[in-house]
């Protein structure tokens, strides 16, 4: 009786804790041709809205946890750009959906993201889905929306495998596995991690670094970015000393990384690269690395490019080099600079978050596609408009999508955290695909 009881308790505890973990991304759909929208796919036939006065646009972003620092500003921009706009006889109605959950620690939750996509599919007047923020979430919603001819525009997904195959970074079968309906319904306005990782490795090389230990949070974004960095570092002569010359995962649920830091110290690395989002216990990771290695160079990507990361890491975050897969708000030029100045004036001098401008650009792409569609409440017409976006003026510059839905001519910005937040701009890095 006692044995059964203890065994059952342990098993149920494992079950409870496992159930509280974020759902792994990934979709096991059949491969597709991956062709861009050409002839009208079957999924897009007869997908005209039923309302004669409304067109619905949704966003699906994590609206809890550390993500709100970014997503509050994204939603504000999307709402200001789209909500209530008149296109012919139609008024655009925007709805802000949350794809995070408390059970996932305030980060994106696969079950919630799938529920959001299904909800939008069930609305006949839904034309565009702006999102997701996290690449793992996009893996789940792209095929669901694709089956109903709804186009997605992401302001923040940087994992390459959503749109293209990159050796050593993306998984076998990607990206076709996300497009089982045989056509592309996904575009993004931000540069991908293969470019950001490679640019970061080049930057480390230019600093004279020779030995690198690469860590990631095991999520789609963090692992992909760190793998891209490691692959490029190996190519250009930086010795990657983490196991198998690639990135090593750390467990975000762990209470302590002192032993991991000890391992990094013993490896003799002169730089640590970390691919992660803020919510994956990064404050503790930085503190433990800095305690064991006070002088080592730490580099990371845009997943931690936010004040909440610095608040958690404290002075351990000083001396961190950060890349951002776009242009930071303070470096925007032309219309972007005007937008940035107005934003600051409207928000008591507060700078926009890193992705805020890309949220604005996503909404502008959406509005442009609806305005130029022959029938603004026909999903296929709107989809063609989004995927065919060319030389569209936005606050982040001209946006043109290639056949994969990736924005052409992206930029990577380099920043250094000296002794406070925000970090100091260093330069725009050259993009090496």
């Amino acid at each position: 009786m006692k044995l059964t009881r203890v065994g059952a308790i342990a098993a149920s505890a494992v079950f409870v804790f496992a159930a509280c973990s974020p759902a792994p991304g990934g979709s096991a759909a059949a491969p597709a041709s991956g062709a861009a929208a050409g002839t009208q796919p079957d999924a897009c036939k007869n997908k005209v809205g039923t309302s004669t006065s409304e067109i619905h646009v949704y966003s699906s972003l994590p609206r809890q946890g550390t993500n709100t620092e970014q997503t509050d500003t994204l939603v504000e921009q999307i709402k200001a750009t789209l909500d209530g706009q008149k296109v012919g006889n139609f008024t655009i109605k925007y709805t802000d959906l949350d794809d995070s959950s408390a059970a996932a620690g305030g980060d994106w939750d696969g079950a919630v993201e799938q529920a959001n996509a299904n909800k939008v599919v069930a609305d006949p007047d839904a034309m565009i889905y702006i999102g997701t923020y996290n690449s793992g979430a996009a893996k789940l919603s792209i095929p669901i929306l694709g089956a109903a001819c709804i186009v997605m525009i992401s302001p923040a997904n940087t994992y390459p495998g959503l749109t293209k195959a990159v050796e050593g970074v993306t998984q076998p079968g990607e990206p076709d596995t996300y497009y089982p309906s045989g056509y592309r319904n996904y575009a993004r306005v931000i540069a991908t991690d293969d470019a950001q990782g490679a640019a970061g490795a080049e930057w480390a090389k230019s600093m004279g670094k020779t030995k690198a230990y690469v860590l990631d949070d095991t999520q789609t974004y963090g692992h992909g970015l760190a793998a891209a960095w490691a692959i490029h570092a190996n190519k250009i002569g930086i010795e990657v000393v983490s196991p198998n010359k690639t990135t090593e995962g750390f467990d975000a649920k762990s209470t302590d990384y002192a032993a991991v830091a000890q391992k990094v110290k013993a490896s003799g690395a002169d730089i640590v690269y970390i691919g992660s989002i803020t919510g994956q216990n990064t404050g503790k990771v930085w503190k433990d690395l800095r305690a064991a290695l006070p002088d080592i160079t730490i580099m990371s990507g845009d997943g931690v490019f936010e004040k909440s990361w610095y608040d958690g890491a404290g002075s351990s975050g000083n001396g961190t080099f950060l890349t951002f897969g776009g242009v930071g708000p303070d470096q925007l030029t032309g219309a972007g600079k005007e937008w940035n100045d107005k934003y600051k004036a409207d928000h008591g001098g507060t700078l926009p978050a890193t992705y805020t401008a890309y949220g604005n650009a996503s909404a502008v792409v959406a509005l442009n596609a609806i305005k130029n569609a022959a029938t603004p409440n026909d999903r296929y017409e709107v989809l063609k408009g989004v995927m065919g976006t060319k030389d569209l003026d936005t606050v982040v510059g001209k946006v043109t999508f290639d056949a994969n839905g990736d924005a052409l001519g992206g930029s990577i910005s380099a920043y250094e955290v000296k002794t406070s937040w925000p970090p100091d701009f260093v330069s725009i890095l050259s993009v090496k695909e």
Partner: protein
Amino acid sequence: MDQIAQTIIIGIANGMIFALVALGYTLVYGIIELINFAHGEVFMLGSFMALVLITTVFKITAGTPLALMVGQVLIVIVITMLATATLNVTIERVAYRPLRNAPKLAPLISAIGMSFVLQNVALLIFGPANDGVDRILPNVNVLSVFGITNVTISAEQVFVALVTIPLLLALSWFVTKTRQGKAMRATAQDPDTAGLMGVDVNRTIAITFLIGGALAGAAGVVQILYNNTTVWNLGFRFGLNSFTSAVLGGIGNLQGAVLGAMVLGLINAFSDRYLAANWTNAIVFAVLIGILVFRPTGLLGQQLADRA
């Protein structure tokens, strides 16, 4: 060899914090056979309380004179222990006592519910991001006094031991030598008979929660000064390890919880150091399953009455 010694030191320091939290799980389970899932959250709120006291009330920094710092840290420990003990007793009174005679699953669900409530309270008050304080204790290698420089024992690690060991000894004395401790053991064996013998069962259970909560508060202070950071879901992370420690050592068994915590701290450290860090939880649970298969009552055996 130095690396192995260093890894052992890291493992033991972490094990001591797990032990303080694990004792709260095992004390409560020993008395009323309830897994108090909210216990990790009491610890988390303790760490936030310590953070507020350190940074806002006493404004302790690395520059505070040592004697003053020791006095202030002692006051922080006492205040935090009192607060978390009160909180834990309140939880027992509000969420568990009304369900004392309900089926076993009812208080378990109530405990999970309390856990979520406390997490959300922390989220509401302190926000979603990590909150932290810069290193307060001196950045020294204590072993350098003995001329050892290739292995490090930090001031934080000494502090963990200085708080944890006396508390464990005091708890052991309380449970084995005092009248109230005897009442706790009697209630654990058979609450009905203990009641007939004049033990106030409700009071004894409340005192158990009081002690468990106080230990969680002490662990919260130790955690903040050792790790320098806390976050609203910290209780879940530590709860996982601490509850596992209690089961590993033999649930309901105080010495078992401490031993389990040390073993778990060491497995964590060695897995992080010599194997893959993202496999650590899998390795910990593989070891747990292995031990429970061969020693189903844990390393030192359960100390529970057979009520089957």
